[in-house]
């Protein structure tokens, strides 16, 4: 018996060792493209062309020149600022509006609420490609409001409201006891105060989930921003990267720097908030 369990333990250790090796190999394969960018960003074009796999440039050696060049030619800080303004405003707006909407929908059995919620849930299946042509022809052709950051912020918010309202609906329905709101009412809170002081703070886990999912989607979105923002000074990072690649695709050193710069902000954020992001994405995916 003791021998048996010792054998089982040895077997388990062996399996774990094999799993570990497999995981490490797959992990290296997964981050291999990123490693390539990192080793080539410090080389000049001739060295990248000659040997993209060498750690240090063979002919010209180590260089930092690619960064300032790419930053300047891509107008990186401008694009970064645009992306940041658009992502942060859209995310905050989505969080506030969708939680308010979910609150009024859950707590009242009015026809308008049921209708709005049904329309929102149904609309979640519509892909953006079905809406992009009419969107451009309405807001570009008829109303002429393209090329404003605010237009993009409102559109981002409008597209993400359904999903966010759906998630807050579930959270309020299951996690916020009605008695709490009745107590607030007796203590003299208006509906507005009840929402802002009682309900909203209690929704923190859902707020984090929605914020992470939507902020990532807004930050990385390309198609909608590229249709709305067509002036260079309004470009977000994905559009700026695309435009930059179109102009400098042969200058590999610059391209590597631009790609690394485009990835860096979100990778840094991921290192800092990794646990929250993984949890948020998981619970968002499982609930949605």
């Amino acid at each position: 018996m003791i021998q048996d369990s010792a054998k089982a333990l040895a077997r388990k250790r062996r399996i774990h060792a094999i799993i570990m090796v497999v995981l490490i190999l797959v992990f290296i394969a997964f981050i291999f493209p990123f490693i390539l960018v990192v080793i080539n960003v410090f080389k000049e074009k001739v060295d990248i062309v000659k040997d993209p796999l060498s750690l240090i440039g063979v002919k010209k050696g180590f260089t930092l020149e690619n960064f300032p060049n790419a930053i300047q030619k891509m107008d990186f800080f401008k694009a970064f600022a645009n992306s940041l303004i658009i992502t942060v405003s859209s995310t905050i707006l989505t969080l506030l509006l969708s939680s308010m909407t979910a609150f009024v929908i859950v707590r009242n059995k009015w026809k308008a609420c049921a209708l709005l919620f049904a329309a929102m849930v149904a609309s979640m299946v519509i892909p953006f490609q079905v809406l992009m042509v009419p969107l451009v022809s309405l807001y570009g052709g008829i109303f002429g409001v393209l090329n404003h950051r605010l237009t993009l912020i409102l559109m981002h918010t409008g597209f993400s409201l359904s999903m966010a309202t759906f998630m807050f609906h579930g959270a309020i329905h299951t996690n916020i006891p009605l008695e709490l709101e009745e107590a607030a009412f007796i203590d003299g809170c208006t509906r507005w105060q009840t929402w802002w002081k009682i309900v909203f703070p209690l929704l923190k886990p859902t707020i984090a989930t929605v914020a992470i999912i939507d902020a990532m989607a807004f930050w990385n979105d390309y198609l909608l921003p590229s249709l709305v923002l067509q002036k260079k000074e309004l470009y977000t990072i994905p559009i700026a990267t695309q435009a930059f690649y179109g102009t400098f695709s042969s200058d590999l050193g610059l391209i590597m720097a631009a790609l690394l710069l485009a990835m860096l902000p979100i990778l840094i954020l991921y290192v800092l908030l990794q646990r929250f992001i993984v949890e948020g994405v998981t619970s968002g995916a499982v609930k949605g």
Partner: protein
Amino acid sequence: MDKNKMSYKVSQFLMFGGISTVLFLGVVILPFIYGLYLTFTSWDGVSRSKPLVGFANYLAAFKDIDFWAAMGRTIIYSAIAVILINIVAFLLAYLVTSGVKGQNFFRAGFFVPNLIGGIVLGYVWQFVFSRALPAVGIPKLLGTTESGAMFAMILVSVWQFAGYMMLIYVAGFMSVSKALMEAAQIDGCTPSQSTWYVTVPLMRASFVQCLFLSITRCFMVYDVNLSLTKGEPAGKSVMAAMHVYNQAFTYKNYGTGQAEALILFLVCAIVGVTQVYIGKKGEVEA
């Protein structure tokens, strides 16, 4: 205040849901309806007049050989990519829930491609395919053959989405009670048998969800298509979403483009809903 008064209801609804309703209607519902209208017009994107043409756009869409070629390509790509994404994701999820050291690190690591937008990922991989791999003797995949471009698209998609689906499968694995596994093993199952016959059937919901997500994402692929292959060689790697974009915004056939977008949406919805329906039918409860 009388809570049954119409004025109270209206003011409450507008206070909490007014702005949302306006944005939602303006960005989703209005364009959707207007898009249906556009399919019955021949609009070039510039002129003020949008002459009504009846079903001509749908007819043009059905006759558009390039569109159906792109659609066929998208279906083949989606079928292979969806299967591979889910196999890889499931295996990764199995490995990172097996209790080895550092499994949280690996979970976080495999998710990294999802953090970065499709445009940037496509360019990174373009460098891999056209510079790094040829340096070790692997021939260029992009811009030469149709199948090469297809292979590249599938590989990048699997790499991009597997980590995300893995997280959903991990949640599935965790939701299956350990007691059931133990019971199965006491009854004589080996660990792999208890995974296959006990855990997997109970994770059906995770499979349905991952398949649905990967189907819809693959069918609508655009960003990676644009940055990785750009439709090259000679338009032989243009996926359906890119064809719709070109039809509308490059060739200025807005009506036909919108009609094709609707057809693409319907095909994708039919595949997705059928999958969910079949998947849910045999669901078992623990």
